[in-house]
């Protein structure tokens, strides 16, 4: 533990003594042991998913376990990509997530511009209203939404999910983007107005391009949330066909070729297919995501 709080700036006092005491060596060793443990803890399960997806399905049930397989077997992945239901659910997930994010970004960018840069009566009320939306549990509106969806004959359709996903993507988008707009320098817009542009022109000619990084981050985070959503997808779509069922409930109920075969190979293969794009996106945009995730939290 001693070394963990090592934020201390290197002072001259530490530089004076170069010889390490036994206590320091033990401390260092424990520190690196902890670091290695955290790396293993965070990354091993993902490694294990990949390895299990690439094992021959029949070797899945072996015990003791083989940690480092020497051969690659594509049959689980092949099974997943030949599985019509899974492919359809993949298509549905892409369509639903992209649509809901595009709608949330479009509506959200307008609202956030007004919230971040304009003064109007009822602004605080609107802000609180939208913020309280991010607080409340999806389950609180599940029944009422389900009822409406059935009345409108939207059960087991993609629009049902696209629209209901706005309950969490839109408030989030408005809030994060209004912070982005707020943080922008005010003179830009004023100079545009002096030039004779209308406020709307100032918005889409000057501010929108500047807000592009914010839009990308927000869109990505909203996309991840929509892509990973389970409760609405499970409740508002049916198990029987894949007209609207997304990948999350599909993976939750994914089974093997026969009911006697342990489905873990295909399940892991499907999991990897669904997760790898997310992990790659997150790693590419990690700086922005770190900023977007904690943007609000630091200001307090």
């Amino acid at each position: 533990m001693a070394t963990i709080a090592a934020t201390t700036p290197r002072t001259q006092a530490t530089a004076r003594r170069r010889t390490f005491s036994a206590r320091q060596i033990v401390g260092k060793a424990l520190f690196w042991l902890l670091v290695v443990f955290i790396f293993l803890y965070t990354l091993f399960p993902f490694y294990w998913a990949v390895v299990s997806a690439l094992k021959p399905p029949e070797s899945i049930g072996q015990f003791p376990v083989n940690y480092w397989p020497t051969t690659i077997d594509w049959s689980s992945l092949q099974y997943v990509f030949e599985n019509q239901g899974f492919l359809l659910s993949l298509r549905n997930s892409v369509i639903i997530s992209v649509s809901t994010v595009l709608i949330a970004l479009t509506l959200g960018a307008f609202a956030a511009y007004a919230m971040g840069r304009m003064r109007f009566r009822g602004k605080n009320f609107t802000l609180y209203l939208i913020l309280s939306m991010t607080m409340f549990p999806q389950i609180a509106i599940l029944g009422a939404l389900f009822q409406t969806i059935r009345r409108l004959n939207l059960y087991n359709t993609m629009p049902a999910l696209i629209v209901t996903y706005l309950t969490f993507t839109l408030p989030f988008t408005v809030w994060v983007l209004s912070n982005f707009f707020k943080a922008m320098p005010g003179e830009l817009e004023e100079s545009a107005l002096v030039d004779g542009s209308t406020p709307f022109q100032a918005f889409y000619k000057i501010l929108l391009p500047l807000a592009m990084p914010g839009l990308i981050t927000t869109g990505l985070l909203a996309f991840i949330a929509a892509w990973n959503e389970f409760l609405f997808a499970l409740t508002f779509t049916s198990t029987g066909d894949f007209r609207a069922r997304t990948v999350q409930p599909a993976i939750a109920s994914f089974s093997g070729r026969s009911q006697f075969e342990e489905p873990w190979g295909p399940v892991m293969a499907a999991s990897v297919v669904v997760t790898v794009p997310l992990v790659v996106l997150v790693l590419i945009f990690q700086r922005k995501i770190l900023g977007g995730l904690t943007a609000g939290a630091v200001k307090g």
Partner: protein
Amino acid sequence: MSQQAAQVPTAQVATRGVPTSDVPTSSWGKARERLAWILVAPSVLVVTLVALFPLAQSIWFSFTNARLAGTPRGGLQFVNIENYRYLLTNDDFIRAFWNTVVFTVGSVSIETVFGVVVALLINSQFKAKGLLRTAILVPWAIPTVVSSRLWAYMFNGQYGVLNDLLTIRLPNMFDWIPFIGPSIAGIFPDEKVAFLASPNLQMGTAIAVDVWKTTPFMALLLLAGLQVIPGDVYEAAYVDGASKWQQFWQHTLPLLRPALLVALIFRTLDAFRVFDVLWVMFGPITQTRSLAIAAQQALVDADRLGRASAASVIIFLCIGVLVLVYTRLVKVEEG
């Protein structure tokens, strides 16, 4: 879900800085105000339609005998607090409540401790810290359904990799050490552990899965809190001759408290509405059923819209109480 929740309490903090009475007077200001309303209107409308209105409907349904499939026999009736009475005297529902409490307290407390450790690590000076910050994003990015199935596979009672570790690899790792080795190896179980099948272990297993998935978010929020602590605090402490351990308790932790509270709010609210992890790992069985699962089952399985709505309202109220308690704490914190 957690990433949306992340923004909430700070908003309250942030809005404090914004001038509140913004009534524009000039004609140009009025035109701008009209524009502002035009820009805000679509979002407000959508939020009202897909969230506020359904919420009001849920509250109304919770006092009726509503069903999903058509109208109930004898028509839709106002049943007063019958649904609430039924739920609060129903053993399964009470069980679901306590399951949810156990899950929330267990998961949030463990991931807070883990989160603090990871945040302190990343905030310290060592070579691999950037790599570590990247690595912890992986569990965060993995969908809950996937992480639940993946861990269920790893926790498997017959051929799970964790049973391999506990009963074979780890004992073997220590066994050869002279004198103390065998006794360390003796700590590990002799037989495979039924993590998923044993009723005593199921909730703990689900908590372990949730902790893995949500610790990164906790750590990142706390890291943001750590990074705003000025370095001279530590320098002063160093001059005082405080040990690292004392520094942590006397300086770091008190300064970290606001960030810790914010992170606790997000995670508590998120854990209290748990659905995915428990559903995917165990299905809707009574032993591990959460409030959200109970509500969803009342709706989909039993076709009791009224009762399900009452369950939803109860979850909503619990979360409301939690928010009040936490905002109280934040206010006390700020003096």
